[in-house]
């Protein structure tokens, strides 16, 4: 595909603005640009065709199965998009007077009420813009709490070795030393390992439950009790809430604060990598530490971004919550779990589940034995799936499983799709024994073959330059 700059024609343009009807003002000479920026010069047809071409080379949830573990690629309802595009939301200035923004306040208050109920929390902020940003906010709640008590010896955050990379990175951004604890053989928290690191230097624990291998940690109450007993607080990474919403609440598991990925659990679209929203809920004793906008709200609080967050994402999540309602929320969770278990069951006998037991909304396949037998890696299988029109699962995560493929089908896939996906996995399993070379070279029908990532990193070309 040509780059947009390669399609540009000097002097071509779209007709967008009228001529300026007031006197022009000159910038002082020392402030002027030397040369115009190299931006595309195009007609509207050119712009439309260019992006349509790009869009044809993107696999979205609308195109087909997208079992990207840990990312909850469920269907994104179009009504939610329509609601977020209402001029009564898009046209509202964040600093408009209170009387002019009552609708926005109602959206936020309603979403907060529902999500607090779902998580078992007392209060919630929508300022964080994504999951990792929510983690940052949540751990800062913990930090402020200890600071407010002059409890300065708490310098460590405990993170299991199965955790998502954002967890340890977040703890470091909050000035904490990260204590990684090994998982038990079943992928859950090793209670002895936890006990051995708990102490009066423990600021808190970051955990997701179900964990990153898709298992609900049945010791959760004991885990949160132990952390509290040591004087630490418990942070819940809500990336996996889709398995349990309406069934069991982080607040009842003993967590003090949580983030939700509205772009996962609450069906807002992922947008090719964002925007999301990382709503953070907390128990009432942490509520005074929630972030505020210095300009919009009361000063003297922490603040993690401008204004009050990705508002239009909250509108979408609210439309989704109103649709599902009290019965639909647990129904979604139960079917997410059912679909994962059914798919795992159908794949079993070929690729081996890393943990052969009832899973939650996702499961991990361990291809290390298969690789030994065939030479075909998790990467080869992932790339081979592309030729079937399936988005590959999450690869090589969590780090505690070697040759991992992590599948999360979500509740919005039908039994037919799951049966088809299982058949594809079975076919590839057999192909690995017959023709491993074919799989090493996959994909065969995609727009490009495997890209040379080493070259990209060694000799970085990160922008277009005119020849």
């Amino acid at each position, binding site marked *: 595909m040509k780059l947009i700059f390669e399609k540009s024609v000097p002097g071509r343009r779209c007709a967008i603005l009228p001529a300026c009807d007031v006197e022009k003002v000159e910038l002082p000479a020392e402030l002027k640009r030397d040369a115009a920026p190299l931006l595309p010069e*195009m007609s509207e047809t050119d712009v439309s065709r260019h992006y349509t071409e790009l*869009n044809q080379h993107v696999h979205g949830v609308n195109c087909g199965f997208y079992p990207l573990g840990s990312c909850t690629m469920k269907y994104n309802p179009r009504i939610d998009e329509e609601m977020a595009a209402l001029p009564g939301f898009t046209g509202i200035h964040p600093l408009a007077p209170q009387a002019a923004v009552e609708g926005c306040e109602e959206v936020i208050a309603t979403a907060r009420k529902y999500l607090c109920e779902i998580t078992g929390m007392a209060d919630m902020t929508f300022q964080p813009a994504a999951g990792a940003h929510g983690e940052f906010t949540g751990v800062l709640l913990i930090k402020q709490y200890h600071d407010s008590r002059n409890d300065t010896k708490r310098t460590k955050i405990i993170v299991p070795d199965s955790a998502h*990379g954002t967890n340890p990175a977040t703890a470091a951004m909050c000035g904490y030393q990260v204590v990684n604890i090994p998982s038990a053989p079943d992928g859950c928290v090793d209670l002895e390992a936890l006990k051995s690191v708990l102490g009066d230097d423990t600021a808190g624990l970051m955990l997701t439950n179900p964990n990153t291998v898709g298992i609900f940690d049945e010791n959760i109450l004991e885990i949160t009790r132990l952390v509290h007993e040591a004087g630490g607080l418990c942070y819940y990474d809500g990336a996996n809430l889709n398995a349990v919403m309406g069934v069991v609440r982080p607040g009842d598991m003993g967590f003090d604060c949580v983030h939700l990925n509205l*772009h996962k659990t609450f069906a807002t679209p992922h947008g*090719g990598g*964002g925007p999301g929203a990382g709503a953070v809920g907390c128990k009432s004793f942490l509520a005074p530490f929630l972030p505020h906008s210095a300009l919009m709200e009361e000063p003297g609080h922490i603040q993690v971004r401008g204004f009050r967050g990705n508002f*239009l994402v909250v509108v979408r999540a609210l439309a989704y919550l109103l649709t599902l309602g*009290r019965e639909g929320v647990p129904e979604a969770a139960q079917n997410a779990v059912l679909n994962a278990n*059914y798919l795992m069951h159908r794949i079993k006998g070929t690729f081996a589940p890393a943990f052969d037991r009832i899973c939650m909304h996702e499961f991990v396949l361990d291809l290390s034995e298969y690789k030994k037998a065939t030479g075909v890696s998790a990467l080869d299988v992932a790339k081979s799936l592309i030729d079937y029109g399936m988005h590959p699962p999450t690869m090589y995560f969590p780090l505690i499983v070697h040759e991992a493929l992590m599948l999360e089908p979500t509740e919005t896939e039908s039994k037919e799709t799951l049966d088809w996906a299982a058949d594809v996995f079975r076919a590839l399993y057999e192909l690995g024994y017959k023709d491993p070379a074919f799989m090493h070279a996959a994909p065969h029908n995609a727009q490009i073959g495997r890209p040379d990532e080493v070259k990209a990193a060694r000799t970085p070309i990160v922008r277009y330059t005119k020849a």
Partner: protein
Amino acid sequence: MGSYVPSTQEQRLEMLHAIGLKSFRDLYKDVPQSMYLDRPLDLPEGKSELEVSQAVQAMARKNKVYDTILRGAGAYDHYIPSIVKYIPAKEEFLTAYTPYQAEISQGVLQSIFEYQTEICELTGMDVSNASVYDGATAAAEACAMARDRKRRLTLISGAAHPDVINTIRTYAYGTNDEIKIIPVKDGKTDPDALKAMLTPEVSAVYVQQPNFFGLFEDAEAMAAPVHEAGALYILGCNPIALGIMKTPKDMGADIAVGEGQPLGLPIAFGGPYLGFMATTTKHMRKLPGRIVGETTDDAGNRAYVLSLQAREQHIRREKAGSNICSNEALCALTAGVYLAAMGPEGLKEVAESSMAKAHYLCRELTKLPGVKLRYDAPFFHEFLLDMPKADEILSALDKKNILGGLPFDGGILWCATEKVSKQTLDEVVAIVKGVLA
């Protein structure tokens, strides 16, 4: 009740039986009974799509949509070309995730590569990331990028946006680092005060251009002392102004950041917005977030990939410079479409027209009795006026469906964009005149 679960009741039972279970409760056997939620959630009953549409529209109607917005302060009401609304709504762009699998994501990857190029062009820098959450987080991440073991103090201009200052402060609180505010003199960063504050611990200096009061800083003159002190110079720029203004690179910046909202994103009660970040090749490997690079595939064809990933959390974990994972990709795409639709000429027109309208409004308002421009210095499209009867003026405008400037520090901070016509500005002046008469 609404539901997006496609399986029929029979299919659900069939699947349950296939895995050897009898009921949904069996799926949750690991959940201790004591915390299993054995009551319905306290949420209303689910609704049909039609009812949801009506309920949410009713909320939107409780907001007031002004015909004219003369308020900026970090959220700018520019015209959004129609095509800019349609392209990011395409379902593939909308529903895909981060392009981890390059072979089926070339469209997203190329759009990011093009966006990175455009940000480099606007800022004069060598490398841009794929976006961060917003302008405030871009500034905070840039300040974090500049710190090393010895240099941990960040100086922030007091004329920067209050939310940006507070966000940088919060990020610094996280890493236990210090920030100091550079005093403001006559509405601008005081260069002498800055010089006196440039100690060997200073890692970076953050200045906003144009600043919160709309004034152009003497940004270029501050670069030399900052660099002599061994610190990095971070400029937070308005991307529309960059259509005509000297690039941050030419003003001596090491890192350029800013709020990308004016590039085709609606003001939308504060978000989603777009944080852009660009720097020189020297600092490329410290840049946070995704970066797309060009390479070739196994057949030698041009291809794009997520690159330089050794910087990121999924590889480096607690040693990563930032925890960012999801970003604002669709907003970056939107900005790309906006810049393509406007082109270099169109962007320049938006900048010039916004600046001209703001100056016209300022000129006309300051002719009225008791109205004074607080800081008499070159400004872009915002200006702070001291005016009597501020509350009455704003409510008189409100009655005519005009959102006046932002009450700030005893004055009113006005903003005008290309969207407002001379005729409307004349009406505004007449209304203000009426109140002051």
